[in-house]
């Protein structure tokens, strides 16, 4: 009986814990703030080809992001033909809607997109916990009821991954591939709770 209880308790405890921190060792904080360098340079036009897979439907477009002031980002998505799909402004806390086509102008869709862009664009966040593995240093931050885990590769010091979670479950994972640690050439965003996957590939410099 005691053995059964112990096994049950083990399963309950492990099913409540995050996979993200499994195998990681807790460390001292080391940093007060963690930063995401990939959209913080005001002199760069960040232009990406976007491929979106949502509930087995494929959509495409161009995602354009620009840091327009120390606090503000402008986010525009267009079709390949150039027609605007959405045009939002993010001030670090909230979004202003400049334009959204009728088909996307639904509360659920916009909330998913806004949460997604917020995760991508927040460039500084206060660290509440820190972990490490042999490969990564991991910094945990809190955003309301959600947590973000920033994975920095020890050898290159590049931000490789952000995992967004609730207390018990992974919600979104963003993977960055970057050769210089300042510009992400490739970004992959995968949702766990909805069938949504976004792949972003940066336009090559010589094309612009």
């Amino acid at each position, binding site marked *: 009986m005691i053995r059964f209880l112990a096994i049950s308790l083990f399963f309950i405890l492990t099913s409540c814990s995050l996979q993200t921190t499994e195998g990681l060792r807790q460390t001292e904080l080391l940093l007060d703030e963690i930063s995401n360098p990939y959209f913080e340079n005001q*002199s760069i*036009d960040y*232009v990406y*080809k976007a*491929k979106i897979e949502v509930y087995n*439907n*494929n959509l*495409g477009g*161009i995602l*354009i992001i*620009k840091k*327009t002031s120390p606090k503000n980002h*402008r986010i*525009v998505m*267009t079709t*390949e*033909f*150039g*027609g*605007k799909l959405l*045009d939002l402004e993010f001030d670090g806390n909230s979004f202003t809607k*400049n*334009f959204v*086509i009728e088909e996307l102008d639904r509360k659920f869709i916009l909330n998913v997109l806004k949460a997604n862009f917020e995760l991508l664009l927040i460039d500084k966040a206060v660290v509440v916990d820190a972990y490490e593995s042999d490969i990564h240093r991991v910094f945990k931050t809190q955003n309301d009821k959600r947590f973000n885990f920033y994975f920095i590769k020890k050898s290159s010091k590049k931000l490789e991954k952000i995992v967004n979670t609730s207390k018990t479950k992974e919600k979104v994972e963003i993977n960055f591939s970057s050769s210089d640690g300042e510009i992400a050439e490739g970004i992959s965003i995968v949702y766990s709770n909805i069938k949504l996957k976004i792949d972003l*590939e940066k*336009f*090559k410099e010589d*094309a*612009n």
Partner: protein
Amino acid sequence: MTPSEISLFKEKVISESKSTKTIKSDFVQYKHLDFLANDVKTSGKMVFKAPNQVKWEYTNPYKYSVVFKEDQLLINDGGTKSKVDIGNSKLFKKLNELIVNSVKGNMFSDSDFEVSFLKSPKYNKAVFLPKDKKIAEYIASFELLFNKNDAQVFEVKMIEPSKDFTQIIFSKRVLNSAIDDSVFSN
């Protein structure tokens, strides 16, 4: 343009358009957004075959092609293929019709637009203003620039209500070469 210049110009465009059975052309597209340092540039090839088959193929900086076929768009996004049914969306249909017809230049009979004509030493320009309020939410005006000599469209500009615009410039245009129907699959 004077009324007689306008009717002469329209006649020329319509007769050119009628004798044009196929078009092959390179194009460069610029997306201008006022907050960007540089316009977003993409480029590729366009193929048209009368009466209404069109393929737009972006090759730089990514591979993406669209075939307009009846009420469907056949899309190949870097190997990922999909179909979009546009039969139900009047607005989308209209926007696609604009893209198809702007290749030929023959949009003067379109009752959804108010058309005005301008001339310069180098080109003639037709400006289309949407009458439909729904279309006007997306497009403030649509401009076609025509060569003076052969009345072919060499530039398309779609201006949004925000003043941001998309500009497509055609080059290396080849008229009436043989184009197989199999080109218009995706």
